[in-house]
């Protein structure tokens, strides 16, 4: 069956009885940018699920700024520790293949997060391409609905990280297909840079219509730029990706920030634990996507639900 059809309920159900029999598990989870706020939230939800189950410890690493060496070293440490499963966001999938072989040879289950690798025992899915498509489509719909013709867009990128590229290449592709001109593509992944880039581009293109951030953080910065530059936010579309608390709050405030391609962050965190447990215990499913959804004012209920995830 297509793993896109695997539902969150199925995942939860399969993992529900993992703690019966008194066995304990160690699941190691490596994200590539642990300094980013959204990652801290994912970790939090993973820890919360582990606590719920009661027999699982989640190990975290220190990989920051997509430092591949750091990630490899962390994974090597986990292999030494002989954890039960490793869930990794592969900064470079090819780079991790030897470690994958080594881990699996030792009986450690190997799951990937976001990116895919051949021969994995599981997959905590989240699709960059889907994320880019969702937010781009929302922008296209907005332009159509508001009769914005010859729309001009700024798309933020993070070129040093090609694995994330679908987050912006999908956007530019869809924009091209729909007659939206991308007037500027500049690197920006956090608030400070999002603000700086958007502010500057607004000087050059005061008639800018659309800003898509490769992450909510960048888009939040861009939103600030609109506010600070006094541009007419009512006539603009800002969209981000991730569904971070900051991004969702901006959507909820209802202004220019009209959409976030939001991953269901609580499910994602829980999936890290559950899919790893399923892989360890050889039960289905251990491959699943955590859906990315369009968070917008148009679906307030969904938005509220997404926001509620962050409530302590």
């Amino acid at each position, binding site marked *: 069956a297509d793993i896109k059809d695997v539902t969150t309920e199925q995942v939860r159900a399969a993992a529900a009885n993992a703690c019966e029999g008194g066995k304990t598990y160690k699941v190691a989870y490596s994200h590539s940018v642990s*300094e980013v706020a959204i990652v801290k*939230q994912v970790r*939090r939800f993973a820890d919360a699920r582990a606590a719920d189950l009661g027999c699982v410890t989640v190990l975290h690493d220190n990989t920051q700024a997509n430092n591949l060496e750091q990630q490899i070293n962390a994974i090597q440490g986990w292999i030494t520790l002989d954890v039960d499963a490793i869930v990794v966001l592969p900064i470079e999938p090819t780079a991790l293949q030897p470690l994958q072989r080594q881990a699996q040879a030792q009986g450690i289950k190997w799951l990937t997060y976001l990116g895919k690798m051949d021969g994995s025992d599981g997959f905590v899915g989240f699709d960059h391409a889907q994320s880019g498509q969702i937010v781009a489509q929302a922008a296209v719909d907005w332009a159509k609905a508001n009769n914005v013709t010859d729309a001009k867009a700024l798309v933020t*990128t993070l070129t040093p990280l090609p694995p994330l590229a679908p987050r912006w290449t999908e956007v530019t592709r869809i924009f091209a297909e729909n007659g939206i001109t991308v007037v500027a593509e500049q690197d920006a*992944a956090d608030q400070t840079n999002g603000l700086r880039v958007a502010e500057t581009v607004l*000087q*050059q293109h005061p008639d800018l219509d659309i800003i898509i951030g490769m992450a909510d953080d960048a888009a939040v910065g861009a939103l600030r730029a609109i506010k600070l530059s006094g541009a007419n936010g009512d006539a603009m579309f800002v969209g981000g990706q991730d569904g971070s608390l900051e991004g969702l709050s901006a959507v909820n405030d209802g202004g220019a920030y009209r959409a976030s391609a939001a991953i269901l962050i609580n499910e994602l965190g829980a999936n890290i634990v559950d899919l790893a447990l399923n892989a360890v215990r050889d039960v289905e499913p251990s491959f699943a996507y955590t859906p990315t959804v369009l968070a917008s004012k148009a679906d307030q209920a969904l938005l509220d639900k997404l926001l509620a995830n962050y409530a302590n």
Partner: protein
Amino acid sequence: MTDTGMTRGAAAAPENPKNRDWFELSVAAALPVAIAALAVFFYLNAPVFMTANNWISISVQVSALMTISIPFAMLLMAGKIDLSVGSTLALCGVVAGLSFEPLGIPGAILLTLAVGTGVGLINGLLVASLGMSPIIVTLGTLTLIRGLAQWLAPNPIFGFPEEFLVIGYERVLGLPILTWIMMAVIALGAAVMALLPIGPQIVALGVNQRAAFLVGLRVKAIGIALYAGTGFFVAVAALMSISRINSAPAGTLGVGVELSVLTAVLLGGIPFAGGKGSVIRVVLGVWLLGMLANGLILMNVPTELSLMTTGLVLVVAAALDVLRSRRS
């Protein structure tokens, strides 16, 4: 790190005194000329560059960097360095963000300034009082304080009181408050260096710390004050930054600022070993970097090319530096 042995054999200086003056002038003018040339270039490629609005926007974009660079430059003139400024910026941002609610705006601002000054004070005590290596110590606090900031902020911090955010966008007499703050810091720095007794004393420390001690300067006190001052203005810069972005991301706020500041200040002609320098040239150094970043975005230059351009500017700056020091 000086090349005493090398300069002697160097190409002969223009012997004619008139040539010499002309030469010196042209090297001294290199920075303003570079700025002017770059401005013209950007103008030709993106006319909007030359608008008042864009220049104001550059001024806002460099305002935090400038606010750190001025005290940082004074520290460097005294032969010291503080690599922890980026992390301290994050820590101050986080502290401010967390304390608006419990303490109110004035309280939060005061606490933030106190934290920044405190961090500077600690760096200063370790370096100036205990005599530890400025580079190693602040390389250490760079890492340590980043950890601290992230530890204080397990959840994202954003959405500050509107009365505070005003700082980030309001204009007074036609100019943004941030620009005014920046200009005040520049004026303060220039005035301290030019008018107060401590100005030449700071330079003296950088020229020869032992001699400064023998001559009776309060070497430790000046060192500590410079670090504390740097910490204070980093806190000011943190408040400026977060009032602008309305968010205090502990992991990414101020990352790499130590390198930007160092670059700007070296561009501004302060030698790494200290002992001389002018606040005004530092201002030009910061401005050059800010203009470069702005113009490259306006021209929508791809990342790789912007990196190469920025790097090249630095190498050229180093070359000008050699010419300048050969003359003296």
